């Protein structure tokens, strides 16, 4: 202790000085330490962020959805205009002379086109140059353009109609490094980042050069950002020009360069860069931009087009080639000059490219995500078998059943009809939904979820549950036919009172508030008599009817209340469609399909949704019922269809109206298609429309635009025809009752029925030529 004290005074001055210096040192060290740790922590945070972003982007390839491929063959009902419309939708470009894949030319009744390679589930369909000639609204011949060889069938590559991307309203066509044309890469480097292959993420020289240039010009004329920095900027889509952001960007750029090769960065850049806006969809990457602006694959674009795209990077909307042609041209010429100066192109190519005009703005909107209602249904079917992740990252190819021609007509005619109905009526906010499917295949060809087809909001076709009214009646009478009734059986259309839910009394009435007395069953269905239907249904039992509705394909339990017999059963238009599909296909249940196949990104078949059928009702029963459904159209509540379609079409259908005219329905089928139309208001208020004055009109307009085929019912063996003795029935407006031939299941013909001398097959085996003629004649009515 003493010694310490002795030495103490000697060290006193140093003692005073040392703590200060030590503290300072310590503080500096601490600050340095904190700084370093902070820097490392923050750096590694940035590192993690940027790597996650980069890897995520690289591997997330959205599932792409395709329409059905158009099959061209001789005699197909198709006009050159319709084919052109379909080609446009599929991203084909009109040219003077079609020679590259994806091009077509048209001269009057002849269209020459070059299809693109497409890998279908059953193999690669090679690109083919074909010449299609039309005559009389049909395809007259299909030939190979080069050899003139006649082809029986040509399958076009299908149109892309949408994609499932994690970020909505975005889409991309992802390209690999090898898919990037050399000229594009060289131009990019010449224009945007000359030292790309030499710098480490940032290019200080370029920054200094840009600074001087900007000072001289007094405004920002040049950027010093490298491609890597631009990529980082694009990843975070933040346009704030703050210093902090710039520093972050620079650090992340350097980090990116540490982890990934130049080629990886370049490829990511080419797929990520923002190049324009297509309505609600952002156009990212050169692959999609090339399709969007030129309707060509990136591999097929010219030097002038490359210059245009690279020029766009500076400001996609400022230099928009469709809205600001002059500005865009100036920018492109400047890029071409840079290309020449940097030796990317030679004088000759430079001169040629300068002379190229900017192609006229192609205003036709591509099919991309144009059909949100249909895509929603595709999505729902996919969700049964796939996880969200599979759909947004694996680049699956989904081949659907959408028929763009049908879809376009459905959209057009629905909105036209609704507008026309509103002019006549009181309501101004009518809505509608439509589902069209193929009659024998159960493939859903078109879906309208509302009158505004681009709206991806409430999808009424899938989600609007509305009482189906008289659409239930075919199920009631099918059950009756199953239980001993015939089409000529007398049924009583006379008032009655029943106990409904909770012991409440229920007094159904006819639409015209009248009673029609004793009528034959087929008339009760054709004229949609409520009292007769309820009496018949009560006689056979509501449970049996409800069970048959289930068998028809509506996968739901309905309480077997008497009011069920008049359609107090809410269903969606899609469910109604499935229910009638079973009738349209002759008693076979076909699960309706929207997806044909799912393929991996490299075209391996993952899943196929094949055709399957299951007989649920005897063909004789359904034949009888469908004959009565034809009567609905020829003389019953559906006869208004005659204003839209020729009688020779012999369509079958049924009207439906719910209480207080809230819902207007029509379902019907022709030889080739089944269609369901619903019209109503979202607030569920009365529309003032019956099935016949509302939905039927839309159905007629839609089908008329689709070149429908004549409905010929296949008569199964074991059917007998006879004139039933209908003298004991009440008078009715129905003409020719006495002469009417009705089909009966063998052995069920009522006493006193008169068999015809000759088989009444005239209707059935109508000459095919004549029916085609009738169809054609019908279009001109």
């Amino acid at each position, binding site marked *: 202790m003493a010694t310490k004290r002795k030495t103490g005074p000697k060290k006193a001055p140093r003692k005073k000085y040392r703590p200060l210096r030590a503290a300072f040192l310590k503080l500096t060290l601490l600050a340095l330490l904190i700084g370093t740790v902070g820097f490392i922590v923050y750096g590694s945070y940035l590192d993690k962020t940027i790597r996650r972003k980069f890897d995520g982007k690289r591997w997330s390839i959205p599932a792409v959805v395709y329409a059905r491929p158009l*099959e061209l063959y*001789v005699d197909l009902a198709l006009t050159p205009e319709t084919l052109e419309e379909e080609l446009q939708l599929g991203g084909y470009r009109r040219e003077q002379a079609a020679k590259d894949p994806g091009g077509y030319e048209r001269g009057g009744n002849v269209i020459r086109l070059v299809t693109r390679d497409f890998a279908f589930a059953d193999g690669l369909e090679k690109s083919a140059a074909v010449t299609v000639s039309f005559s009389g609204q049909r395809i007259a011949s299909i030939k190979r353009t080069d050899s003139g060889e006649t082809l029986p069938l040509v399958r076009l590559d299908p149109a892309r109609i949408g994609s499932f991307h994690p970020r909505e309203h975005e889409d991309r066509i992802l390209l690999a490094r090898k898919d990037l044309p050399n000229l594009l890469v060289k131009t990019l480097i010449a224009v945007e980042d000359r030292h790309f292959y030499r710098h480490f993420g940032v290019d200080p020289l370029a920054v200094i050069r840009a600074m001087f240039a900007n000072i001289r010009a007094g405004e920002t004329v040049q950027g010093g950002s490298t491609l890597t920095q631009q990529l980082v900027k694009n990843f975070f889509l933040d346009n704030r020009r703050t210093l902090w952001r710039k520093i972050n960007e620079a650090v992340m750029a350097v980090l990116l360069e540490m982890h990934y090769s130049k080629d990886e960065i370049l490829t990511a850049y080419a797929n990520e860069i923002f190049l324009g806006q297509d309505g609600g969809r952002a156009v990212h990457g050169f692959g999609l931009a090339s399709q969007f602006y030129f309707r060509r694959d990136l591999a097929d674009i010219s030097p002038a087009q490359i210059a245009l795209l690279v020029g766009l990077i500076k400001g996609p909307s400022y230099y928009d080639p469709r809205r600001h042609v002059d500005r865009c041209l100036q920018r492109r010429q400047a890029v071409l000059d840079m290309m020449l100066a940097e030796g990317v192109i030679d004088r000759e190519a430079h001169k040629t490219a300068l002379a190229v005009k900017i192609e006229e703005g192609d205003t036709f909107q591509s099919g991309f995500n144009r059909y949100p209602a249909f895509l929603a249904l595709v999505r729902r079917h996919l969700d049964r078998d796939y996880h969200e992740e599979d759909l947004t990252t694996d680049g699956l190819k989904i081949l659907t059943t959408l028929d763009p021609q049908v879809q376009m007509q459905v959209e057009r005619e629905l909105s036209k009809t609704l507008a026309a109905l509103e002019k006549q009526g009181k309501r101004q906010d009518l809505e509608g939904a439509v589902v069209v499917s193929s009659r*024998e*295949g159960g493939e859903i060809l078109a879906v309208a979820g509302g009158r505004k087809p681009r709206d991806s909001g409430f999808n009424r076709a899938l989600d609007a549950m509305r009482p189906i009214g008289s659409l239930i009646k075919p199920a009631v009478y099918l059950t009756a036919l199953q239980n001993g009734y015939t089409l000529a059986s007398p049924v009583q259309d006379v008032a009655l009172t029943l106990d409904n839910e909770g012991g409440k009394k229920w007094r159904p009435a006819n639409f015209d508030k009248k009673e029609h007395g004793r009528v034959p069953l087929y008339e009760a269905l054709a004229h949609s008599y409520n009292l007769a239907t309820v009496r018949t249904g009560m006689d056979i039992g509501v449970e049996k009817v409800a069970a048959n509705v289930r068998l028809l394909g509506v996968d739901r339990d309905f309480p077997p209340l008497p009011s069920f017999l008049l359609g107090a059963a809410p269903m969606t238009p899609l469910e109604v469609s499935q229910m009638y599909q079973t009738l349209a296909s002759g008693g076979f249940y076909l699960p309706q399909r929207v997806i044909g196949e799912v393929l991996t990104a490299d075209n391996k078949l993952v899943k196929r949704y094949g055709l*399957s059928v299951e007989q649920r009702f005897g063909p004789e029963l359904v034949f009888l019922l469908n004959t009565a459904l034809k009567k609905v159209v020829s003389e019953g509540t559906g006869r208004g269809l005659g204003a839209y379609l020729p009688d020779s079409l012999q369509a079958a259908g049924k009207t439906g109206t719910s209480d207080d005219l809230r819902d207007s329905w029509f379902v019907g089928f022709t*030889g080739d298609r089944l269609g369901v139309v619903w019209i109503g208001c979202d607030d569920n208020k009365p529309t003032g429309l019956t099935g016949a004055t509302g939905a039927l009109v839309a159905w007629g307009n839609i089908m008329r635009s689709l070149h429908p085929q004549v409905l010929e019912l296949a008569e199964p063996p074991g059917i007998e025809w006879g004139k039933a003795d209908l003298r004991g029935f009440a008078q009715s407006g129905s003409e020719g009752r006495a002469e009417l031939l009705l089909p009966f299941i063998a052995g069920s013909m009522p006493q006193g029925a008169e068999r015809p001398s000759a088989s009444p097959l005239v209707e059935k085996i109508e000459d095919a030529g004549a029916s085609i003629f009738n169809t054609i004649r019908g279009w001109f009515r």
Partner: protein
Amino acid sequence: MKCGKVGRLWHIFRLVILLSAITLPLHGCARRAPVEGVSTPRQEESPARQEEAAASREKESGAAAGALLVSARQAEQAGQFSRAEMALERALRLAPRDAKLWREMALLKLKQDDYGQAEQFCLKSNTLAGDDRELTRKNWVTLEKIYARLGKTEKVAEARRKALASE
């Protein structure tokens, strides 16, 4: 030097093997039936089947569906049932009411031991067969086989009766 000679000989030998490996399958290809989409029936098809194909091609479904039927059969013969089904479904899309195509689908399902769907497609074919008694008879004969396989004795008898009735 010797070593080099042996090496060269070995090289030539390898070339020969390689060349023949390449050309052999080509010979196979040349002998094989026409490319997909061309509507000539295959050589090894039985006359009855050829007739059936020709009839369905000309009468009901036209050349396009006929071409697809041919490629469906080619795929089937090659054991590619999924491809065959896809081709048939394409044909059915063009000619959905062609009873013969539905029967073809039934036969294809039968080949894959899918008796349930084979039965259903036969029934479907029958509802569209109309006056074609021969087709109806064939479908009942097939159904008889199917029911026998499924052990549905009652239905076997019924199918046999209906097959006889269609003769």
